[in-house]
């Protein structure tokens, strides 16, 4: 993805120029690009007058941030306690197998990134998987393939439509 510095500046203009705005601005950049591009971090450092090392410290400390580009679809499997006792470990194994990636990795075609989180707070529906913000509750390993088929199918249709 190309990074336009002007786009970064548009984001940063919304915030003040102090350390206090570091996390909110990084969150917004993360949302816009799905990761924190190095060019953006440099810009943030200049504008907020926070040293680059501190920007990287914050960017690497909080789990919401990623320093690596991520896939088009973000797949999140909840590993909270309630999901754990209902078998989320089996679920994440199966998702990994279907997408052929491990948690934290992005598939080679840059389509999917698999992430695990500590809790999504939808414990009553555990085990829970979220794909691009859509929740799939009461998931079992057996349902995984069917869910991802929808996404790969949609992808193929889009590609076909563009050609």
């Amino acid at each position, binding site marked *: 993805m190309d990074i336009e510095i002007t786009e970064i500046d548009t984001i940063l203009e919304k915030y003040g120029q102090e350390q206090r705005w*570091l996390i909110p601005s990084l969150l917004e950049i993360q949302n816009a690009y799905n990761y924190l591009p190095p060019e953006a971090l440099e810009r943030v450092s200049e504008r907020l007058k*926070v040293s680059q090392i501190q920007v990287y410290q914050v960017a690497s400390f909080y789990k919401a941030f990623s320093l690596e580009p991520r896939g088009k679809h973000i797949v999140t499997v909840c590993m909270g306690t309630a999901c754990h006792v209902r*078998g989320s470990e*089996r679920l994440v194994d199966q998702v990994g*197998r279907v997408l052929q990636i491990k948690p934290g990795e992005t598939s080679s075609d840059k389509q999917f990134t698999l992430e695990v989180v500590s809790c999504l707070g939808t414990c*009553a529906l555990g085990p829970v998987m979220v794909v691009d913000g859509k929740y799939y509750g009461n998931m079992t390993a*057996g349902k995984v393939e069917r869910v991802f088929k929808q996404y790969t199918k949609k992808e193929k249709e889009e590609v076909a439509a563009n050609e």
Partner: protein
Amino acid sequence: MSKNDSSKVLGLEQRREQILASRDPSHPIITVCAGTGCCASGGIELREALEKAIQEKGLDAQVKITGCRGFCEQGPLVTVLPQNIFYTKVQLKHVGQIINKTLVEGQPVEELLFKDPITGERCIHEHDIPFYKEQQRVLLKDSGAIDPTSFDDYLAVGGYKALIQALFEMKPEEIIAEVKRAGLRGRGGAGFPTASKWELTRKAAAEPKYVICNADEGDPGAFQDRSLIEANPHSVLEGILIGAYAIGASQGFVYIRNEYPLAVERIQIAIAAARENGLLGKDILGSGFSFDIDVQLGAGAFVCGEETALMASIEGFIGEPKARPPYPSESGLWGKPTNINNVKTWATVPYIIKNGADWYAQIGTETSKGTTIFSLVGKIQNTGLIEVPMGISLRHLIEEIGGGAADSRKLKAVQTGGPSGGCIPESMWHLKVDYESLREAGSMMGSGGMIVMDERTCMVDMARYFLDFSKFESCGKCVACREGVKRMYEVLDYITRGYGQEGDIDLLEEMGKSIKIGSLCGLGQTAPNPVLTTIRYFREEYEAHIRDKKCPAGVCKALITYYIVAENCTGCGLCARYCGESAISGEKGKPYVIDLQKCGRCGVCMDVCNFDAVVVE
């Protein structure tokens, strides 16, 4: 100024009267639960379909969303007013029936009514259902009735009356005295008396003062703060406003998890509405009190639930806890006096002011007053959000409200307090739920997650799971927590993989005690609790792993075997299709077999089997 002299108060009251006068209680309304749980099971699409159907039929009825109603397991939930008919598990295909039968004919749709699993009877109203019947809802009372995005709805149920009372009829000291008399204790888990904290911050000399609402609900298995904000954000806001006035704070922050997008949206809508209506900003309602509030998003760090780490995060730094004293009440955010309370604590305040301290103090036990909200989850029938008076027994909570075991398996423990808490065995479920009893049992109240486990839950695996969490979430500042938790995790991991040795249990206990002493903040101090309590109550499971190399619950992969019971197997071949290791083979129509050499013990075969033919030992 008295409240009768304030034109702004009169304006607000007038608006309230107009709203109430314009609402006809006999007018049909369909409410659809739009909490995260029900949204995940299709609540939003349902609402749109209902609206469309009503429009097409030209009916005079309103569709409205509400916040989380707690019974997430049975979602999406729908209520039809004025009859107050309560529907569970409503799908798009039911829209026509609801419109034709209930809205037009006034009759309930039998199949959508909740069926009591014990008596087999259908329940028409919410309060007929055992899950609700046994609760005492104070904070959640309006959750299922009001539209969380509507300021008018909150006014209609008496919203901001407590604030008006506090601003115009009470001195700050009187408010603190009232909260003290009510006996409110912090709902974030530690149970510190709220009024004492307020008093300390009020008395601190420096200015400005800050208040913070801690909505960084990081405990896995807890979602009551999220649901409360999603369902009734104005009640939290009103509580913060009253507290800020009592403390003398001019600026507030709601620190909320980034993982809760819906809650973030709802609190932002509520703040905007409050500002528009003169309840935030300069000279609130003409009282002379000025206060404003900002929302700050967390960025995914569990340790930020700890107050000093949370404040570091608001300041834009990494979330590392600091040594106390000085306490935040003296030197908090940017070195200024800061009062920080949990979402539920803030939301309780308006009810105490409105109904009085005596009313509040008569609920609960001698030392733990009022009601509290739990997220009751795990292997029980009715999972969801519940509000109960303090002092209720664990058994009552799990068996009556939770409906007991989800299937035929026996329940064996309940985990409270998240990664800081412990597992309480079934034999001790006579215990009363209050701060002291739970602490004595080696657990804690925590933020209110309650996870019920059955005989298919391995307690050693559970302990390992929590340490994995704490190890991952440790900020790394204190050696005891950073290194110690990791070492404890390794020992547990070895045990679950079949490499446990004699003496491991003693070693775990010793390390646990040292980590408790050597850590600065609550995360490290309580991280060993899940291990220590499971050793205390389920020692035999540890011994089975270490000595017999067996996992009695059938969970730990290295110690279990999956196999297919030939009598039950129909030979459908589904398991073989799903097996990632190609370890299952057979001929269609004949029993299949698992090749134990190839088996990765993932359990997918067991999940997909429709005939209970796959078993684990």
